């Protein structure tokens, strides 16, 4: 009985394990077109239902291409004190993911979005303007206040 309960707890959590949003990633992106993108941020569209990070990628022939990388909802980041100022143009990112099924579109999902040393975006003391790593509950908004680095 005990084992079954634990299994049920594990089952619940395992079912939640993939980090996904609420839309059809599998319909949008092509599993046969993996990409690794590296370059400076051009701009970020802080929009729902998904934020889009634009980065400039230098191709092998030296030409520069603008890619768009899909993220999640900005609302959760706002509540953690991350704002449109937190990811500044020029910040170099390394992103792995899969390109959109329409290959004429330079768009990909941000399966992993990191700084050049491999640290995940918005975590740790990045020195890039990310004000909070979200791990310390005292950094969250207190009654009558907004979170650190808020609006």
């Amino acid at each position: 009985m005990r084992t079954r309960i634990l299994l049920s707890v594990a089952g619940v959590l395992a079912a939640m394990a993939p980090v996904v949003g609420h839309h059809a990633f599998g319909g949008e992106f092509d599993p046969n077109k993996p990409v690794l993108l590296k370059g400076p941020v051009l701009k970020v569209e802080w929009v729902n239902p998904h934020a889009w990070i634009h980065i400039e990628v230098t191709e092998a022939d030296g030409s520069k291409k603008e890619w768009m990388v899909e993220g999640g909802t900005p609302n959760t980041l706002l509540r953690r004190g991350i704002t449109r100022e937190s990811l500044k143009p020029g910040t170099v990112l390394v992103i792995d993911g899969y390109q959109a099924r329409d290959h004429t579109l330079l768009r990909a999902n941000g399966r992993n979005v990191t700084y050049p040393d491999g640290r995940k975006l918005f975590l740790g003391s990045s020195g890039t303007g990310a004000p909070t790593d979200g791990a310390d509950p005292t950094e969250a908004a207190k009654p009558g206040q907004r979170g650190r680095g808020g609006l």
Partner: protein
Amino acid sequence: MRKRLLIAASIAAVASIAPLAGQTKSAIPRLADGHPDLQGTYDLATLTPVERASGSPLVLTDEDARKGEQMAAARKVAGDVQLKGDRPAPPKGGDGSPGPAGNVGGYNSFWIDAGSQFTIVDGRKRASLVIDPPDGRVPQMTPQARQRIARNVRPTSDQTAREEDPGFEGNGAYDDPERRPLGERCLMGFGSTSGPPILPNYFYNNLHQIVQTKDSVLILTEMVHDARVVRMNAEHLPKNVTKWLGDSVGRWEGDTLVVDTTNFSEKTRFRGSSASLHVVERFTRVDAKNLLYRFTIEDSETWTRPWTGEYTWPITSELLYEYACHEGNYAMGNILRGARLKETDDAKKK
């Protein structure tokens, strides 16, 4: 001694007349008219799923709750772990990620704000929202409901292609924008976050706000900006007037706000429900910081019996933000465009 007995007796008396355990007259905020003040912003994020495994109890042991919450915390830490800056691109053919991550891996955990705890009702952590049937499972669907749902689904034309591309939904799922989920189309919260019944989404944006007057109660769901107005002490609209969130009328039963909702649009398909869907919600402010939300689902054309769930909504000081969605919804166009190109490619292969 005498005095202490009297106090104990009076506490017992109050507890016995209170609609839900743990509630006392003095512990909850009230409006000038004497009714409980339900107003505030609530964070519904929880680890407790709608259903639990067959044969397992509703209440989690302290040990199981702790282990489950530790597993959730460990998963978050694992999602935050530093990678290599010079890592390669992910594997061709997909990364094998299941479910909605669609074999392409979704996105980073830093976007996610899921629950960290199981819901607590009457001081105990719960394994499921469903409390009735007592096994914590949603009842069986009726044969007619299964037929109805099957009629709306086209057969998969090419199973081989599905096996080669497991992230791609079959059954003509991308044939028409109106076949896509309401959340994906920025019309209403996904799953049943806007309700009724209002369920957690287990990912993010679980904030809901209640605004209350004598004549109406507003329930605002952050994602996707769904506002439901409950008309107090009113009659339901004529049957032919249907709404996406249904027609909600409310009344007070003691200190509990009871909201009765019918007249759902056919566009609203709560777990395959029919136009006969009838939802009764009970909102009870159990103390200054928590509201107990209970819902009962009746739809004899869909389920073999009514079913009931409940969970606690804790008050939060976090801000509820606007969720403007349509203009930036590039994903929807990408999904439909990708499906048209895949159809063209598949036709060429034949």
